[in-house]
C-alpha cells in the first residue's frame, strides 16, 4: 500500500477542527495556549468511556465530549485567563500535565472488569468516517467564519490588539476570554472524540505536551488568525509525515526544515496577515 489518502484526509479533518479551536484562542483572542492537547484528550476519553461504560450512542457521545471539553475549558479559564503572554503559556502547559497525570491514574469499570487508564484503552467503536469528518469540518469552518465576523468576534479581536483599550471601550474582557477559551476547547474535544473513534485504541501517550506544540505549529504555519491558513497549515503538516514515509527517519528532519524555512520567509504564515503578540 503506497499512500492512504483517506487516512490523511481523516487525520487532516480531525486536526483542522482542533486547530480551528486553537486559532480562536490564540490567533483571534491572542491568548497563547500550550494546553490544547489536554482538551483533545478530554474529548477522546469522555467519548470513549461514555460508549464503553454506558453504551451511549456515538452521536450523543460526540456531543457530550464536545460539551465536556468546553465546560472544563471554561472553568479552567476562570482563574487562568488573568495571566498574560508567557505566564499564561506556562500555566496552560501545567494544565496539560495535570490532565495527563489524572488520566494515568484513573481506574474505570468496563463490563464488570476494572481497568487502569494508564494502559491503552481499546475496543472503542470505530464510527468515525470520512464523510462525517468532512461534514464536521465544513460546519466548524462556517461557524468560525461567522463567529469571527460577529459582534463577539470583533470584541475578541480587540482583546488581541489591546486588552486595556478593549476594557476601556466597555468590553468585559474576562467574560470574553473565558467564552473564547471554552469554545476553542470544545472544538478540541470534538476533534479528540473523532480521533478516539477513528483509532479505536487510545493511550495517554497519544496526547502529550508535544501534541500541543504540533497543533501550534500547524496554526503558525498556516497563519495565526486565518481560517484558510488553519486548513492549509494543518493539511500540510498532517500530510508531510505520511507522504515522506519513504524517507523513514529523515522525515521529521524535513518537517523541521519546512518550519524553519516558513519562519524565515513568511513569518506570518502561509495565509496570515496579522501579527499576534502573545
Amino acid at each position: 500500500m503506497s499512500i492512504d489518502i483517506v487516512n490523511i484526509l481523516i487525520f487532516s479533518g480531525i486536526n483542522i477542527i482542533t486547530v480551528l479551536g486553537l486559532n480562536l484562542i490564540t490567533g483571534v483572542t491572542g491568548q497563547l495556549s500550550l494546553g490544547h492537547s489536554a482538551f483533545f484528550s478530554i474529548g477522546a476519553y469522555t467519548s470513549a468511556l461514555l460508549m464503553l461504560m454506558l453504551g451511549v450512542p456515538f452521536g450523543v457521545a460526540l456531543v457530550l465530549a464536545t460539551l465536556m471539553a468546553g465546560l472544563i475549558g471554561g472553568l479552567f479559564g476562570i482563574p487562568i485567563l488573568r495571566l498574560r503572554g508567557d505566564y499564561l503559556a506556562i500555566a496552560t502547559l501545567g494544565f496539560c500535565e495535570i490532565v495527563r497525570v489524572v488520566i494515568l491514574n484513573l481506574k474505570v469499570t468496563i463490563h464488570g472488569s476494572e481497568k487502569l487508564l494508564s494502559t491503552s484503552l481499546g475496543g472503542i467503536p470505530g464510527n468515525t468516517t470520512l464523510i462525517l469528518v468532512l461534514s464536521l469540518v465544513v460546519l466548524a469552518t462556517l461557524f468560525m467564519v461567522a463567529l469571527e465576523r460577529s459582534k463577539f468576534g470583533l470584541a475578541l479581536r480587540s482583546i488581541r490588539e489591546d486588552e486595556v483599550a478593549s476594557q476601556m471601550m466597555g468590553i468585559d474582557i474576562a467574560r470574553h476570554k473565558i467564552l473564547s477559551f471554552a469554545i476553542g476547547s470544545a472544538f478540541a474535544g470534538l476533534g479528540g472524540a473523532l480521533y478516539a473513534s477513528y483509532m479505536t485504541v487510545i493511550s495517554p501517550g497519544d496526547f502529550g505536551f508535544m501534541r500541543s506544540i504540533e497543533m501550534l505549529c500547524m496554526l503558525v504555519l498556516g497563519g495565526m488568525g486565518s481560517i484558510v491558513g488553519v486548513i492549509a497549515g494543518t493539511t500540510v503538516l498532517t500530510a508531510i509525515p505520511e507522504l515522506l514515509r519513504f524517507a523513514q527517519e529523515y522525515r521529521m528532519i524535513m518537517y523541521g526544515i519546512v518550519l524553519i524555512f516558513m519562519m524565515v520567509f513568511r513569518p506570518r504564515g502561509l495565509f496570515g496577515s496579522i501579527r499576534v503578540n502573545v
Partner: protein
Amino acid sequence: MSDNTILELQNVSLTFGGLKAVSDVNFKMKDNEILSLIGPNGAGKTSTFNLITGVYTATSGAILYKSKNLKKYKPHQITNLGIARTFQNIRLFKQLTVLENIILAMDHRRKINFFASLLPFGPGKKEMESVREQALKYLEYANLAEYKDQRAENLSYGKQRELEICRALATGADLLLLDEPAAGLNPSETAGLMDIIRNIKNNLNKAIFLIEHDMKLVMGISDRIVVLDYGQKIAEGTPEEIRNNPAVIKAYLGKGE
C-alpha cells in the same frame, strides 16, 4: 451638590506602598465644561484618570459620577455608565480597520442575541447594517470616513489621535477623559484639535476632562483648570486665575531666592 455636577472627587487618595501618588484631592466638574488637569511630570494626573476609569481603586475617598459612587464598578462597567477615555500613548486596535475600531466602541450598546449575531441573514444582518451606519456617522463627524477600511495603524499620527477621540465618543459617553491629546502634534494639528474639542463640547454637549502639557491649548479652551503637584491639588480656577497663581508658578518654575 448642584444639579449639573457630572463628576466629583471627594478626598481621593491613592498610595503605592509608601508613595502617595494622589493625596486628598477634591474637585467638582460640571456637565458642560472643559476642565483641564495640569501639573509637572509625576504629579499624579494620569493616576487620577486611572482612578476615575477604575484601573486603580482609590485607597481612600470617593469618586462620584452623576452621583453614583464608582467604587464598586469594574473598568468596563464605568465605560457603560458613560465615561470614556483616550490614552497618553495612542492605544488603537492597530490591526483592525478604522470602522471596526468605532464599531467595537459601540459594542456595549448593541443588544443582539449571540446566536442571532452569527447568522448572515435576519435580525443579525439588520443589526449589523444599522451599527455600521451609525459608526460611519461618527467617522463622518470626525472627517475620517474616507479611511474607514484602512487599518488604524496605517493612519498618520495626527489622524490616529483624532480616531482615538472619535472612538471614545462612539462609546456614547457623556464625559470624555483625554490624556495628552496634543502630544506629538504640530501647531496646526493642535489648532485643529482645539476646534474638535470645542465642537464636541458645544455641539454634542459632552463634558471634557483634559490632561495636557501644551499651555496654549490648555489656556485657550479650558473653562477651569485644576493643578496637581506631588499628588496634591495646589490650585483650581479659571485660566486667568491659574496663570497668576504664585503656587502654580512655583511648582512649574521653582522658586528663586
